[in-house]
């Protein structure tokens, strides 16, 4: 019985204290969340615009070469073939980004 009593006391000792936590922590977390949200938006816009500009320039410059690569599109004009290829690449990139997962969470 004394052993059981000591075990119970040890369990009681291991319980968390009831002292209230400061609210500053929540403010700090929410500030970090907002900061991250802002920087994510900025990065997406900047790199999205850059990507679009380079993609457009590349498409104009290489439309004939790209069209020749895809022999099954002989009936399609060079510009449309290039647009199709760019659309597929963009869709794959977007899907990869959306499905991106963090190993630290998934275990």
């Amino acid at each position, binding site marked *: 019985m004394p052993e059981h009593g000591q*075990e119970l006391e040890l369990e009681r000792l291991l319980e*968390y*204290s009831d002292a209230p936590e400061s609210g500053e*922590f929540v403010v700090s*977390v929410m500030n970090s*969340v907002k900061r991250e949200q802002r920087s994510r938006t900025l990065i997406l816009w900047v790199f999205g615009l850059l990507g679009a500009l380079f993609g457009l320039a590349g498409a104009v410059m290489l439309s004939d070469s790209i069209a020749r690569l895809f022999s099954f599109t002989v009936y399609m004009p060079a510009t449309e073939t290039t647009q199709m290829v760019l659309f597929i690449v963009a869709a794959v990139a977007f899907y990869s980004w959306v499905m991106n997962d963090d190993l*630290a*969470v*998934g*275990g």
Partner: protein
Amino acid sequence: MISDLELAARVTGSNDQAAFQQLVERHQAAIRRFLRRLLTGDHGTADDLAQDTFLLAYRKLHTWRSRGSFASWLHSIAYRQFLQFTRKHARSRVMAEPPDRGTDPRESVDAEILVPRLMKLVNAEERACLTLAYAAGMSHPEISGITGLKLGTVKSHIHRGKQKLQHWLEEHDHSIPKQNSETGTGPVEEARRA
């Protein structure tokens, strides 16, 4: 009260930051206390890791599957943050410091300082299992899910951890300090007064 599931759906569905704030307010105490135990009382680092935990949870909220509780999911992120931290700082002073076996922690203070010192007597896995079981009130399967340890291993860590603490307390011929029901104070405080 709005459930964690509903709040999480609001965050992932419409990026509702007020909903996420409610989740943080609801779970911050448990996560901070859990990390403080794991870090044997290092409040500063514990709060830094707790902040990283919530930030990661915000980023990855869409991956939370409602099979387990939100609290369990958060604890598992916090535990991984702790493991990453210990790997990075394996040789740092905080984690490598051996338990102070020469002095009785209860001579100096109450439970606030006594518990972190006692926690140094057990290893990190035992510390996590003991804290989740007795402080966070989680079941053994939940602890297994959080720590990634097998159910049997969780049970043996809890058993061994408790044995170590009890053995140390017996070895030093002390009973565990109790709150005095009349004065509301612990034995150390009473000894100081005397």
